[in-house]
Every structure is written in C-alpha cells, then in structure tokens.
C-alpha cells in the first residue's frame, strides 16, 4: 500500500544513447570549474491514478521517444556509472507545466478525468560522474535549483541503491490554516496601526501575513471610512483588497501625488498626460492616437481598418528572486495587456530590455547575515531571465525582434527586466468599435484560463517595497504559456469576432480584486460568489483567492444571452471558463463566500479614497567624478576594447535564441547584414496582406542620470525617435512609451531627479510631436543587505528611464538596415558632434583603464530638438527616395562604434577621415570618435545619388567622410590626417562578438 503523499507509479524516461542534455549540463559545469566526467538525466513522472496496472505500460510508452529513449516503471534507472544522483522537483503548489501536459495526455489515453491537484508530478534526476565530495555535489545542486520554487534530493550511489532509487514522494499541497474570514480591529494606537500597514494582518500565532504597504495616512483614512461610514471593522479580505487597489503598483501613488507647490497635478498628469493632450490638439486631423493611458495598452492607427497597440512592463522584483519564473511571467503577463486591450488585440511582437550587473562578478551579496541568504549571482540572474523570455515568447508564437541589454554594477541588488508586447486589432469587431468597451449591469463576470493558487500573493504590494529578507516567496510565479496560448487564440481569434462579450481585462497585479473592481467602474458595481472560483488546491483563505495573482487569467463581462455560447466555445478550445458573479449598478462591490457576505465596500471609496500625497523635492548636487585625461596614443587598442565592452558588444546569443521570424512578419531583423550585428531598431509587417510596417525601438541612458536627469531623459527620447527614423519610420506617425524605474523614491533628491526627467519628457515629446500612449513606473528598486564581509550595504539602481518608440511606415520595401552594402559607397555623418562625453561609455572605459573606476564627467549630451527635427524630416525624405543604402543611428559608444557596426555588418571595410567633420570646435580625435552627441546618423550612399542626397541636407550638418571599401581594412584618419585606427573587419568582428559568446 502506498503511503499518503506517495505516487502509485514512478515512470523514469532516459536515453538509450548519449543524452544531449547531459552533455550540455556537463559542459556548463566544466566551464564553471567543476571536474565532471559525465552527466545522465532521467525525466520522472510520478503518477497517482487509479488504473489497471497492465495499462500503465501502454500509457508510459506515450511518454517515450522509442527511437532514442527507454523507460522503467517503479524500478530505478541505473546508468552505468555515476557517483551522485540529484533529483529536482517543484515545491508544492508551484506551476508545473509538464505535469499538466502529461495529465491531459493520460486523460486522453484513458478517456477519463484525473485529479488536477494530486495525480501527476514531474521531477528531473541528474546522475553525476566525476571527482567530488559531498560539499562539491551540494554546490552543484545549488547551481541547478532555486529553493524558492524547487526541492532537491541528493543521494550518493550507495544511498541510491539502498533506498531503491529516489522514491515516490509527491508534493501535494497541504494548507492547515483556517479558511475563514477574520475581522480586523482598527482600534489601534498609531504604532500598531503603522505595523499593521507595513507588515500585514496578524495571524493567530502572531506571525504576519505579509505587507499591505499602506502608510499611516492611508491607514487612518481606512479606519475613518469603516468607523464612520460602514460603522464596523473591516474584514481581512476588505483590507487586503484596499491595499492591492491602493498599491504603488496599481495606483502609481508617486506619479499621482502633487509634487512641490508648482505642480499640484503631479508628474503623470502635468508632464506625461498633458504632453499627449497637447500633441493631439496640435496635430488636429493628423492625430493618430486611438486609445491612450486608459486601457491595458496604448493604441494608435495602423491604417484605416486596424489599430496597433503597445505596452511595456517591468518585472524586476520577481526576476531577482526567480529569474526564470520572473521573466517568463513578465513576458506572458504583458502579452495579456495586448489580449486585454480594447476587445482583444492579437500579440504580434514582443520587446525585451534587461539591466544586469556584470555576469562575471562573482562577489557575493547577502540578504541577511547568513550564508544561506546569498542573492543569486548576476550570471544566474542573466541566464535565468534570458531563458525565461525565450520560453515565454517562443512558446507563445510571438516574435521577439527588438530588445537591448545594459550593464552596470548598480543593478546587482535588483536587475531590471523590461518586457513589452505590440498588438494588432481591427478597428471594428462584431460590428462595433473595438476600443470602446463597457461591462453592463446584469452581465456575468466570467474568468477564463488558469486556476487560482497561492502564487503571487502580495505581488502588487510587494513591488512597493525594497527587496529585503522579508520578501515573500509566494511572490514568485511561473508562467504557463500554453494555457495562455489556448486562451489567447480562443479570445482574439474567435470569441471577439463573434461578439460574445462586452468587456475584457487582464488579471495582473492584485488578481481578481483589481480586475473585477476595475471593470466594475464601467457599470457601477459587482457581486461575486467566491466559492465558484476554480482553485488549484484546497485550503485557500477567501482573501487569498481574491488577491492571488495566479497567471494566465482574464476577466470578461458576458451578457446572459451570450453566456452559454461563450462557455461552450471556451470548453471546446480546452479553456476553463467560470461564471463567478454579476456586474451591477449598485455603487458597491460585494463578495459572498458560502452564503455569507464577507466584503461590501463603496466602489468610490475603493477607487478614489486613497488620500493624495504631496511630495517635495530637493536639489542636491551630487559629487561628480571629473574625467580629466589625455587623448590616448594607441587608438587601435582603445577602439577594440570599446567594441568589446558589455554595453556595446554583440548579444547575438540572445537574438538568435528568440524566435523573431514566427508569424512571418519580420522585415528588418535584430541581427543585420551578413556579419549579423545587433540593430537598435526593427521593422515588422504585422499584416501580411498590407505593405505597411511597424517600426520599433527604444532609448535609455542610465549613466547620464546622476549628472543631469533632465538631459538624460531628453537623450532617451531623442534616441528612441532617431532610431525609428533610421530604419524608415516617420516622425509624423510615431508614438512613445515611458517606463520609469527609480530608486529610493521617498527621498526628496530622488524625487527632484524624477521631476527633472519628467519635465524633459514633456518638453521633448512636445517638441517632436511624439505622444505618450502608455507608461509604467517602478519606484523602489533598492536592495538593503550585506556584502561579502557581512557589512551592511545599500545598492540602488541608477534612475533608469526607458523610452520605447513605435511608429508606422507606409512601405516596408523602403526599410533600411545598418550594414554597408556596396564598395565605393560614400559615407556621411549627419548631425553635429560636440564635446559631450560626460556619462559616456568612453569615459567609463578610460576611468576603468586609468583608475580602475569609471569616470563620469559633466558634459552629457544636450538635445537641440529644433535642429534634430529638421534632420529627421530630411532623413525621412532621403529614405523615401531610396537614397540611403545603409543608415545607423549613432548611440552609446559614439561615431566609431556606429562605423564599426556598419562595417562589420556589411563585412566591408572603409576609409574615413575625421577631418571631414566640419563646423565644430572639437580638437581631439578621441572625442570625435566616442562622444555620444545626439541627433546623428551614419549613412552610406550610392555615389551616383550624391547630389540628390546632399541637396536634401543642404542647410543641415551633413559631412562626407569617406568610402566603403571592398577590402577588409577599416581605417580612420585623425584630424591631422594621420591614420589613427588601422585594423581589419575580421578583428572588429572577433572583438565585437567575443564577450557574451560563451553564454
């Protein structure tokens, strides 16, 4: 008789010949310095179902590739020789996609349903042969698993034999806590009330449930509301729900707060929203915005019949804890911002952006004063995050053409993981506007997709807190892209066009508590019966069900006469759909549980009760490390080192593992030219029957922030706009998105920086006429912990503003790539080059070279929007007349890096004379080479188009510098006419690609 919590069957699947995964694992550990001979793997399925024992053999055969694999049932796999076996499986309740698939396959095979909670579990066994003792194998184990989501078991060969394999235990969820509803007494003194807000509701044993992230002012407003208006104490579910709704994550309290006496409207209203409003007004008939700020994504016109949507999110804190889970949940989550935009936009492209510390930095950092609390190393975070977006994007069938990576040691405490999704939606579906959606009183509240577990509880309030040792592991989730793919297809490819619902939204932060309450704004109220919500496992408290952030769920508003048709369609597509209540017009939100009312709040209070804060800023001149150094003598050496720096070099290994060709919509690729060089802009063709394209890019300069946040933001906008122009975009049909990732945002100095950046956001968006259509902020990216000697440290990210751009181009056949095309072509630099190396990659390099620490400097680039706009218009004309054979926007690393990239991409040499850069007062070659002055392009032009091209730029800075060469030599002559860089494109290619190749 099997004991409780053990499976009846353990099926182990392993390779008959050499296991390719084993080789990969072995090679990885060897590269990390371990001495390993061999690794074998087994996939283990622990199956607890009541079926004929004879039939389990045929069922097992369906799990095996018979040509390459073999299997055993209830008999441990014994590879020829091994010293240790490490088995890794999930902790109870963690999303396990493989088990889900296997259960579905078994149900299909046996033609009966099995218990979703307890029937199938998956583990992997690694059999290691090599030279190691217990400690070494333990450290190998640590490298293989993440204790927040997984469990590990290590047996020596002897233990494996004596225990007859790794055993039959299965991680069934046991929750012993009460599933009732508690009333929370708010008759507390200030200190106790503050503690309640900070650490959460107390359990009966004195432990706390986790942060509500409600400050004293909010707690007092809540107390007043319940005591004066409701004349009772709140229930736990009410308090948790208010905390979710009022969280920084959902309400953006800092962006909404009045800031100083001169900006009572706050940052969002006064700078971001106001910029868009003004631009739209100024554009008049030519306004291309369709939906801004109000929905899950922002939307602009694609053509007369279609809308293109875009949204960029961050998933920083979860990615710090579980990089794979955090990143996959992030990308799959932002896909739902497309599916939940309007009546549902089909995701047509993903974006990514990662800010990490140097992956070679092995110096440990700890969350608290114990060895066990070590943060994952920058390398593990990078590997996990890169893999997470791979798994999420590729599996969902959404191309990922555009992204960036950026490195700085200040991201060591918290990485930044940006993820975005672009969607396509017809303007009209089922005979009505696709963007105007409204839940109607009497509509059914239906949730579709995944079930609810404890995962992701307090995700919204968690994001309002700095990362420290109290961070709840339940904030970690793992995405399930296939469940979401089924849901997505059923909605955007079928139910939407059949007109089966009145409104739809995503279940993201705050789970149902936010999505239902948010949709209820459209009609005025809701009643939910909590026991109808399908659960992953038993034992959840009502408040947990209500705020859980379990993934892959959408909430819809479905009228009675469409309800059956909707549910039937979902079920046919393998998607679970459940009616959980009704939308009303009562003005109140009500939640019942087993016949008892456990939540009854005024919607007005829930949505607008949050007291508005008034924040104050304070300017503080931060010390600047001056960058005083001489022009280097050996320019060749500096050049090759510059091109191999983390912030300049190739990330081909990421671009080629992210499918950017699926949907057949790729026009210009992430890797361009025969030389496969990363481009900072991509073009897609989201509708194969149209010749229009969508241009996507971005800009960010965290290294400028501490010098001058105003010009940092200006440069980010200029770069995002300029990059889009360089590929064929039009400034007349270009929108932008803002993602502010800040640090320590209660600090008046950080708020001053924020306000400066926001002011520039207004000024330059208006100057270019590029409206914001959507944005997001993440304000507390700080880490408090201990260094390698257990001394306290704080690591805050540099204030990071990501500006993403999205535009429409009329004719994709006019798109331009960065690679030099034909020998003999003329090379031009467009735009002015100034002495603007402050915060540049070059200063960082020279500082590290001369003083082992980055130089910063003061003279960061400024943006002359009036001139740049003229240049961008002219470039648009040149591209439209097909006069630019190649075009690259000059970004981080400056002119020399741009020239190197165009040459390496085209696998063609060139000869360039810096003396051709006229009308400027820069006297140093190194500054001409590496200054990051904005508003510049490097273009190659067919000599027979010379007059036409120069004529377009006749009153603008446009300098002929040299030629593309057939030979592989790459030559730059300095101001005085001396060759200062004389190298070969093969050497450039090698140095450009070597840094991240091994990952």
């Amino acid at each position: 008789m099997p004991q409780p919590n053990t499976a009846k069957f353990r099926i182990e699947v392993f390779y008959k010949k050499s296991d390719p995964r084993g080789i990969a694992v072995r090679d990885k550990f060897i590269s990390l310095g371990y001495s390993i001979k061999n690794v074998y793997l087994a996939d283990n399925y622990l199956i607890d179902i009541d079926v004929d024992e004879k039939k389990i053999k045929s069922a097992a055969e369906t799990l095996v590739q018979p040509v390459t694999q073999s299997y055993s049932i209830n008999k441990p796999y014994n590879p020829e020789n091994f010293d240790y076996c490490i088995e890794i499986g999930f902790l109870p309740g963690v999303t396990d996609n493989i088990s889900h698939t296997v259960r579905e396959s078994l149900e299909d095979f046996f033609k009966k349903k099995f218990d979703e909670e307890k029937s199938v579990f998956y583990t992997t066994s690694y059999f290691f042969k090599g030279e190691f003792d217990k400690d070494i194998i333990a450290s190998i184990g640590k490298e293989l698993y993440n204790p927040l989501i997984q469990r590990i078991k290590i047996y020596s060969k002897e233990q494996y034999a004596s225990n007859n394999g790794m055993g039959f235990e299965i991680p069934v969820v046991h929750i012993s806590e009460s599933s009732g509803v508690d009333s929370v007494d708010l008759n507390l003194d200030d200190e106790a009330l503050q503690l309640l807000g900070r650490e959460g509701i107390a359990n009966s044993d004195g432990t706390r449930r986790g942060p509500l992230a409600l400050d004293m002012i909010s707690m007092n407003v809540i107390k007043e509301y319940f005591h004066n208006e409701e004349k009772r104490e709140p229930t736990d579910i009410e308090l948790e729900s208010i905390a979710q709704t009022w969280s920084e994550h959902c309400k953006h309290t800092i962006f909404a707060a009045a800031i100083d006496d001169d900006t009572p409207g706050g940052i969002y209203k006064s700078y971001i929203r106001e910029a868009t409003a003004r631009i739209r007004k100024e554009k008049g008939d030519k306004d291309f915005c369709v939906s801004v700020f109000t929905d899950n994504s922002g939307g602009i016109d694609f053509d007369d019949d279609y809308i293109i949507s875009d949204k960029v999110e961050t998933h920083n804190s979860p990615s710090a804890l579980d990089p794979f889970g955090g990143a996959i949940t992030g990308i799959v989550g932002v896909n739902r911002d497309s599916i939940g935009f309007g009546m549902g936009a089909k995701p047509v492209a993903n974006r990514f952006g990662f800010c990490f510390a140097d992956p070679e930095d092995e110096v440990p950092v700890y969350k608290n004063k114990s060895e066990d609390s070590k943060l994952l190393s920058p390398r593990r975070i990078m590997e996990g995050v890169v893999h997470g977006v791979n798994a999420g994007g590729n599996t969902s069938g959404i191309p990922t053409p555009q992204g960036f990576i950026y490195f700085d040691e200040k991201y060591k405490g918290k990485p930044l993981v940006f993820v975005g999704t672009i969607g396509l939606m017809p303007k009209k579906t089922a005979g009505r506007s696709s963007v105007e959606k409204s839940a109607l009183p009497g509509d059914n509240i239906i949730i579709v997709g995944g079930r609810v577990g404890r995962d992701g509880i307090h995700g919204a309030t968690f994001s309002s807190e700095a990362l420290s040792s109290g961070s709840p592991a339940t904030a970690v989730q793992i995405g399930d892209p296939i469940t979401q793919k089924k849901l997505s297809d059923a909605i955007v490819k079928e139910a939407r066009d059949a007109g089966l619902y009145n409104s739809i939204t995503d279940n993201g932060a705050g789970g149902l508590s936010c999505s239902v309450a948010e949709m209820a704004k459209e009609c005025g109220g809701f009643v939910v019966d909590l026991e109808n919500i399908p659960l992953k496992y038993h034992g959840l408290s009502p408040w947990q069900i209500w705020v859980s952030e379990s993934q892959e769920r959408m909430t819809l508003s479905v009228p009675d006469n469409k309800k059956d048709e909707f549910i039937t369609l979902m079920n046919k597509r393998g998607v679970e759909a459940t009616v959980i209540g009704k939308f009303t017009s009562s003005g109140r939100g009500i939640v019942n549980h087993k016949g008892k009312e456990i939540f009854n709040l005024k919607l007005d209070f829930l949505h607008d009760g949050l007291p508005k804060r008034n924040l104050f800023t304070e300017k503080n001149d931060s010390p600047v490390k001056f960058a005083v150094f001489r022009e280097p003598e050996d320019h060749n050496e500096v050049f090759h080192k510059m091109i191999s720096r983390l912030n300049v070099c190739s990330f081909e290994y990421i671009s080629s593992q992210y499918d950017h060709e699926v949907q057949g919509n790729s026009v210009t690729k992430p890797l361009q030219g025969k030389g496969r060089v990363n481009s900072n802009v991509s073009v897609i063709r989201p509708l194969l029957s149209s010749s229009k394209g969508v241009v996507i890019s971005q800009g960010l300069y965290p290294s400028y922030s501490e010098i001058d946040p105003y010009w940092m933001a200006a440069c980010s906008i200029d770069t995002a706009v300029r990059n889009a122009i360089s590929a064929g975009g039009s400034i007349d049909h270009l929108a932008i998105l803002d993602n502010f990732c800040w640090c320590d945002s209660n600090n008046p100095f950080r708020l001053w920086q924020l306000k400066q950046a926001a002011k520039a956001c207004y000024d330059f968006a208006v100057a270019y006429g590029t409206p914001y259509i959507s944005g997001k902020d993440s304000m507390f990216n700080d880490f408090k912990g201990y260094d390698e000697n257990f001394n306290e440290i704080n690591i805050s990210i540099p204030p990071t503003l990501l500006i993403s751009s999205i535009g429409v181009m009329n004719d994709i056949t006019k798109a331009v790539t960065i690679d030099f095309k034909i020998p003999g072509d003329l090379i031009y630099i467009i735009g002015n080059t100034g002495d603007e190396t402050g915060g540049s990659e070059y200063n960082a390099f020279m500082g590290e070279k001369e003083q082992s620490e980055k130089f910063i400097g003061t003279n960061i680039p400024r943006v002359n929007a009036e001139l740049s706009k003229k240049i961008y218009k002219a470039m648009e004309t040149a591209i439209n007349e097909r006069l630019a054979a190649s075009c690259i926007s000059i970004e981080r690393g400056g002119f020399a890096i741009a020239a190197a990239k165009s040459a390496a991409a085209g696998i063609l040499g060139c000869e360039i004379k810096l003396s051709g850069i006229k009308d400027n007062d820069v006297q140093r070659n190194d500054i001409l080479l590496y200054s990051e002055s904005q508003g510049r392009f490097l273009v190659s032009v067919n000599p027979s188009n010379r007059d036409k091209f120069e004529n377009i730029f006749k009153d603008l800075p446009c300098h002929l510098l040299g030629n593309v060469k057939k030979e592989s030599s790459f030559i730059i002559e300095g101001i005085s006419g001396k060759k200062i860089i004389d190298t070969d494109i093969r050497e450039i290619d090698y140095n450009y690609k070597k840094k991240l190749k091994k990952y």
Partner: protein
Amino acid sequence: MAKPETLVLTGYGINCEEETAFAFSTAGSNARIIHINDLIENRKILDNYQILVFPGGFSYGDDTGSGKALANRMKNNLFEEINKFTERDTLTLGICNGFQVLVNLGLLPILNGFDGNAQAALEYNASFRYQCRWVDVMIEKDSPSVFTKNIERMHIPVAHGEGNFYAPEEIIEKIESQNLVSMRYIKDDGSRANSEFPFNPNGSMNDIASICSPNGRITGMMPHPERGMFFTQRDDWTLLKERYLREGKDIPIFSDGITIFSNAVNYFK
C-alpha cells in the same frame, strides 16, 4: 480546375497556422484553419480536403518532447481518419513542430505502412539551444517529394530547439537508398554542411533538413517556407534590393519559400 482545399490544423500551442494558411492561399489554394478538437468532433471534415498541414509551433509546450503529446492526441483520436486521408491521393505537410508530430506519429519516415510507431527522432539541437536563423538547403533531385519539385536550393529560415534528425542505422540506410531525403543543409558555396554549425543549425544526421514518404505525398521539413515566401522576409533583402536598384531591376515580391506551396497546389492541376 477547382482550387485544392487545404486544412491547416491549429490548437494546443500550434502557432504558425495563420501565415501557413496565408501562404497556401497566396499560392492558389482555399485554406482553412481548423482546431484539432473540431476535427475530432467531426471526423468527416477531412474527407473534404486534399492537403493537410501540420504547421509549426509549440504544441503542448514541447513537454515530454517536441511533437509527442500532439502525436498522441492524433493517435488516440484520429488514427483511422489520418490513415484514410493519406491513402487517398492527397498531400500532407509538416513544418517544424509539424514535422516533429509527423515523426512521432509514424508518418515519417514511413517505410512499412502507417502503424503509429516512430522510426526516427528529432532531437535537441547539438548546440542545446533554440536557433532562429537563416540557412541554405539543397534539394535532392531524386527525392519523390511533391513539395520540393523543380527547386535546386533555397535560402530559408529555421527556428527550433529540437531539429536534430536521428535514425538508427538500418532506417537511415533505407531513407538514403530510397532517396527519401528531400532537403539537406549546405554552405554558401553549395557544398554539404557536413554537420558544421551554423550551416547545419542543429547537428542533423547527414545534414537532413527534410524527408518524405516513398510516394512523395507526405513531406516534413524543419525550415519554415512560410517565413521565406516574400522577398522582404529574407535576412539579406536590403542588400539584394540595393543591388537590384543599381542594376535597374524591379524589386521582387516573392522569395524561395513560395514554391513549396505552389508545388502543392499545382499537383492538383
């Protein structure tokens, strides 16, 4: 002559159905996308079609091995219907994940009739990494595949984590001797890739990119012709465009991949 009817399967994580259907329509077929569950519910549907396509994607998330779970679903529910369909004068195409399904279903290689047993495998890439890149393939002249007729070589993208073709010795001998390899990976100069990365992107045995049935009516391929049917989908189109402009030539609309689909449509003419 009536247009042939093409059924493009979808569901459970298949994700290339729309562009694949678009390719067949562009080539002159009526193409319909049908969910596997609708096919299981109404098995007769297949009788109305001449071309059956298993498109690319991530059916069941590749869990338990790519293409396996979807092959099981077909076997458990549609074995007879598939058998009947392939016995008629019809065409069956599997692209990428669709090829993996055909292999696990026992439809490719198919040396002794359809019995539902796999005789080969598409294993993890030798790089153990998902590879999205453009490759060159040569078409085996003696291959009976209907889809690759009159093509010499193609520039075409691949995107997969498990495309490493493997078959036991006795099987590979039969595949080779019966000319069932329809595409092989090659270098720029036209010579065989000889397992060299990145020309052979996955380490495939004998540089195999595609195989077919002895009657040529069933073909599976790792490359994605639907992602290389238009000129502007190519990774080198901006360079070619520049050359064409200077030579005074028109910029083409189509690229190599379209022929795979037009061959299928022309088979019924």
